[in-house]
């Protein structure tokens, strides 16, 4: 058996297409153990934490002050899991590309797809769709199970309560944008530690840093930070210094698009 005689029938003759690169990235995503674990953890946390949190709140409901009961937002425990899942999604978004640079896989990838950009679109697209497909059911399960636990104290929201459906679906959309944004960050930074540090800095370090600014500045600027703009779609109530849900989400999407465009430019022009 030689390489030539075995090949003619099975090798085909097609070229690179965007759809084929998407298939390839789908295979890549699921064929690494770290990915499967991260997505499992994100799913379990998104569903598990709200059930745990609402159970604890429910069992201690009697000891809550009237004031606390009045200001209790039943959506808070329902979406707490997705706040934690953003860490897993963000880290995985960086890893989707940075692990290719750290292992050298990127050379094989870019040799197979030398036009390069189809790889970026496929990575961001596949990871965004997977995130949405896992996180939308997760937040829905989290919402309905936590509200049913809280309903015995009449401290729950129904799906038809104004803003609830938007906030719950918004929590899944928020995670999808994080997925795209972090694939962009990973492509720009090309390094796992650096990419995760950049993600953590933007989402967890920058917001509290704003508190050192004079209040008027803080109020004017903070609402436009990626994390705050993005979370406005998850929040039920909005202060005067918060963007409205969909304008805020649009700002968040704009950040992700900007990161992806910057990633596309550097991926095209840099040596691999």
């Amino acid at each position: 058996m030689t390489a030539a005689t075995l090949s003619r029938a099975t090798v085909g003759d097609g070229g690179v297409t965007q759809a084929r690169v998407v298939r390839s990235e789908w295979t890549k995503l699921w064929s690494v153990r770290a990915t499967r674990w991260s997505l499992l953890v994100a799913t379990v946390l998104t569903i598990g934490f709200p059930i745990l949190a609402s159970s604890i709140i429910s069992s201690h409901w009697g000891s809550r002050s009237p004031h606390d009961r009045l200001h209790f937002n039943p959506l808070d425990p329902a979406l707490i899991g997705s706040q934690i899942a953003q860490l897993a999604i963000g880290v995985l978004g960086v890893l989707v590309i940075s692990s290719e640079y750290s292992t050298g896989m990127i050379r094989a990838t870019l040799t197979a797809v030398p036009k390069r950009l189809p790889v970026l679109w496929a990575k961001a697209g596949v990871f965004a769709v997977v995130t949405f497909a896992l996180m939308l059911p997760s937040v829905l399960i989290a919402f309905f199970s936590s509200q049913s636990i809280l309903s015995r104290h009449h401290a729950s929201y129904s799906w038809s309560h104004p803003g609830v459906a938007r906030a719950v679906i918004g929590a899944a959309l928020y995670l999808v944008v994080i997925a795209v944004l972090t694939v962009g960050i990973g492509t720009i930074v090309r390094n796992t530690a650096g990419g995760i540090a950049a993600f953590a800095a933007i989402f967890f370090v920058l917001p509290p840093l704003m508190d050192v600014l004079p209040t008027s500045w803080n109020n004017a600027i903070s609402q436009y930070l990626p994390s705050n703009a993005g979370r406005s779609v998850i929040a039920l109530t909005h202060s005067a210094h918060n963007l409205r849900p969909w304008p805020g989400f649009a700002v968040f999407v704009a950040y992700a698009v900007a990161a992806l465009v910057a990633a596309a430019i550097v991926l095209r022009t840099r040596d691999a």
Partner: protein
Amino acid sequence: MIEARALTKDYGDKRAVDGLSFDVRPGVVTGFLGPNGSGKSTTMRLILGLDRPTSGHVTVNGKPYREHRAPLREVGALLEARSTHTGRSARNHLRALAQTHGISNTRVEELIELVGLNDVQKQRAGKFSLGMGQRLGIATALLGDPSTVMLDEPVNGLDPEGIQWIRTMLRRLASEGRTVFVSSHLMSEMALTADHLIVIGRGRLIADTSVADFVARASKDIVRVRTPTPEKLAAAVERLGATVGHTDDGYLEVSGLKVEAVGEAAAAASVVLHELAPHQASLEEAFMDITRGELEFGHAETAEAAA
């Protein structure tokens, strides 16, 4: 067919590839020879479009690599640096790359069989030995049944069995009519596998010739002589057009004359000889000789620039 024209690549202020022009023709094994750090890997990265040339250009089968619709069907490459995700199995690695070109899983199974990775195909590539990694790299290179196969230092670090396997594979690929472009820093390895040679040093082209010509040109005859009166002998052979060098251990090295002619010249000049022996330069020495001039020239230039 690979055509490089005035190919130049700078990294910062270091010039890695310097005005390289060469053709790699189909149907023969072309060796790409040069010392470590001479720019072989960079040249291959430029051919694959992984790096962009500072100036000049290189095409594969008439087009820049990245403009091909199905690049893996034009060139299959094994790079020296590892190009696999350590956490992914060999089979999934091949499948993911095959899918970019719509190549079937059947083809992947056949290649796993061909390179002998059946037993370990589900293991993570990060656990592979160097030899297994090279086999996976060869399978990757052959995915698209390419007409050109390009391998960067394929035998580096392999055990004798692995080296034998690679050599056999190279000959088989060439016998199937493919263009095989294989780099090495070992002249002896090239003499065994290559038909044609492209030799570079410090990023510059030194030779573009058949292996036989290169060996003939390089291995000029030297006669080593030991005598109590070296000056007398040197004068005698230099009159006959030979050049004479002195070795550290007290020998004269006469080049340009056959051993018989040196002996006759000594007799005619009544020079006493203690030792007289022909010395055929080994391939490694020949290669070193030819590249040395280039390297020293380069060093001198660097020194001038630094001064």
